[in-house]
């Protein structure tokens, strides 16, 4: 059966498709350039610039990595470990914190919420934080220092608290208590199941934060075997930037091999590639998790 406003719907569809296609292409093009640049000969990049099809095909950007894959693989290992462990532990702690803070019968919840929130506004600063982690806790060159600081982000705690408050009505936990469940059982059996969307969101945030982190490596890790992936990549780029920045006056010359433009591009691909390939497979779990709580009785 034909609906009256057909031509407007058609026009709308056309415009919508056009806008989305153009935006997607705009997002895609830089990435295509990176792919093409990573397969180009370095001298040709400097001379002729970036092109969609390599002017002079060459695999030299990948040589550096393929010849000595150890650092990259180790960095991958480190980042994957910290992401998985960090996300699981973090979710565990954050959901517990969120659950406790939203319980109306927790007398001091306002005080604790305030203290947690206060730290986002006023921090001790970089030096005291650095001193705490290096001098007093002595966590230099450990996995702990990569995982520990990101475990309890105040923003995520508050986010979780609100999720749980809206997902789990008081009546449900009250009735569970009447049925004789202790707090842990309520937490595990009811709250966790009901706040899956929240957990998915917070988990995603956490995983992204751990995956993208490089700052902790730069400050606390001296052992190259424990570098995170993003730090390793950033390092390579910075070596080049440092040389450019030092300018003409300082006479600093580096003995080691200085990566070229193509190596930069190749490294970026190697670092981001697997995630891009992985995402389509994982995507449906996120979507499912996010919508699972949407339709409720």
């Amino acid at each position, binding site marked *: 059966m034909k609906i009256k406003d057909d031509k407007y719907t058609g026009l709308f569809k056309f415009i919508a498709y056009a806008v989305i296609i153009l935006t997607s292409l705009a997002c895609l093009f830089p990435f295509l350039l990176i792919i093409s640049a990573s397969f180009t000969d370095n001298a040709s990049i400097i001379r002729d610039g970036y092109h969609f099809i390599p002017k002079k095909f060459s695999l030299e950007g990948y040589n550096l990595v393929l010849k000595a894959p150890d650092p990259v693989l180790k960095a991958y290992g480190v980042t994957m470990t910290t992401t998985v462990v960090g996300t699981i532990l973090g979710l565990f702690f954050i959901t517990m914190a969120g659950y406790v803070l939203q319980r109306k019968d927790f007398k001091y919840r306002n005080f604790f919420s305030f203290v947690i929130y206060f730290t986002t506004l006023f921090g001790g600063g970089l030096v005291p934080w650095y001193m705490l982690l290096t001098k007093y806790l002595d966590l230099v060159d450990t996995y702990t220092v990569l995982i520990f600081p990101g475990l309890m982000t105040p923003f995520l705690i508050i986010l979780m608290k609100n999720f749980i408050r809206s997902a789990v009505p008081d009546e449900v936990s009250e009735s569970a208590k009447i049925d004789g469940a202790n707090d842990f059982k309520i937490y595990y059996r009811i709250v966790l199941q009901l706040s899956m969307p929240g957990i998915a969101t917070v988990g995603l945030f956490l995983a992204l934060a751990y995956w993208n982190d490089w700052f902790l490596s*730069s*400050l606390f890790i001296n052992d190259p075997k424990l570098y995170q992936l993003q730090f390793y990549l950033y390092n390579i780029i910075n070596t*080049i930037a440092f040389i450019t920045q030092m300018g*003409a006056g300082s006479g600093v010359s580096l003995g080691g*091999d200085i990566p070229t433009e193509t190596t930069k591009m190749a490294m970026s691909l190697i670092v981001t590639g697997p995630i891009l390939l992985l995402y389509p497979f994982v995507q449906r779990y996120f979507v499912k998790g996010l919508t699972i709580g949407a339709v409720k009785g």
Partner: protein
Amino acid sequence: MNTRSKATAVLLSSFILASALSACSSNNNNGESSSPSPSESSASPSASAPASESASASPSESPAGIDTSKHVTLQFYMLGGEPKDLSVIEKKINEMAEAELNATVKFNFTTWTNWDQKYKLLLSSGQDVDLIFTADWTQYQSYAKSGAFLPLEDLLPKAAPKLQEFVPQDMWDAVKIDGHIYTVPATYKEYVNNGFVYREDLRKKYNLPVPKDIASFEEYLDGIKKNEPGIQPLSMNADVKGNMMDVFREVNDDTVGGPLPYGIGIKYNSPNDVYSYWGSEEQINDLKVIQRWQEKGFFAKNVLNVQDTLQDPITTGKAAAILGDNPTRYNDTKMKMQSTHPDWELGYTPFAETRGFATPVHPIHNGFAVPKSSKNAERALAFYEKMVTDKRYNQLTQYGIEGTHYTVEDGYYKMVGDATSNGFPREGMQGWAWRNPEFMLFDKSYDGVKAIFDQLDKVAKPDLFTGFAEDYSSYQAERAALEQVEKQYFYPLYAGLVKNVEEGVQTAMDKAKKAGLEKVQEAYKTQWLAYTSEKGIQ
């Protein structure tokens, strides 16, 4: 929910959003806000330094004249990345250090990522650091002035007498800040003065003049532009201050050293005459030349976005000349270029030819200091003495293991394998500071640089500028504001992009004056004149 709690809920959630967004950038901001920390937090450890010195006054029977009865682990910090085979070298060094000094050393590297922040934290957090690299570009002067390092003049005769003898007295004097020696300078004499770098084969082909000064350089660039339209005559990138302005002034305006901040002008031949380069006739004339170059098309219009190094376009043939580069990098570029294009030639004219003199690198340029927080200052110094004066330690940490990483052929250094397979390239630990000219091995290609150094030796004059330690704590805010003004208003002038130079300079000067230019220049002038009278510079 009634309206009032609804309103508070909305307010709170907007706060949360704002704080969440600010939390994203807070890490970086905290780095900036804690920058005065070296002076604050090292004020307290200053009391412990005299105590440790008096405690170590008791001599003992060990060879270094210090007490080595207790085994210590020394934390050695260097900038940059570590070589692949560091652990092998570290083990070998520790075998010797254990036996001779009852100490083991851990070599740590800051990498080039955030190295300045890490450097600041290492010195200000009281962490265990026993030896750390210093240079003028790591702000040695300000760190020394704010007490981040231990004074060494009393420790040297006891802990490192050989080292004290090895370094000439004038070098020790040159690194003194406020009358104390805070770093052990490197003794290798090199020159980092700039010179014109240009394609010699193209010059010969079109019979162009040899670039000696700005005028002849411009003629050369004209020739290239006319005869080789596909090549960009001048290689230039986004750092127009460092790579264009400062270098231009070096050859054209007789600067005492550099880079001179806040638009200050001081000439080498009249060091006590401090004037404002910004806004002066001199600057306007210089800028007009650069603007003319931009108009003639010597470098790209979008130069402020170019991120290439200056040298890459030369090695690939995209550009023909560099305004100024130092001899070591020139040699590097030449080698790289000739490995892919053996028929191209690269010429070099040191600025010394027009200026009439060259200044060797100031002793502060490469040094090693003992931070205030170190608990093993004497052992650290004794170890450093070994690094510099003992051939085994020195060559192990500079070149690696003979046979595995390098071989010596005809007295020249030769790398084993190539840059990707070798685990310890030449000076792979960035050992610029502990070079010992007696033990140094050079690659054959370095002969070109040595020849230039010999040339410059003949006209060497002392570096007057690098020994100056600026104390900018009283005008830190204006300093930051001026940096912004320079980036925004002066950079387009430096890139030759402003058509009306006088107007452009006028606008920029107005903004600079509003940002506190006069106060900063006055303060700098006072400090500089105090420095020249202290050092007896006429």
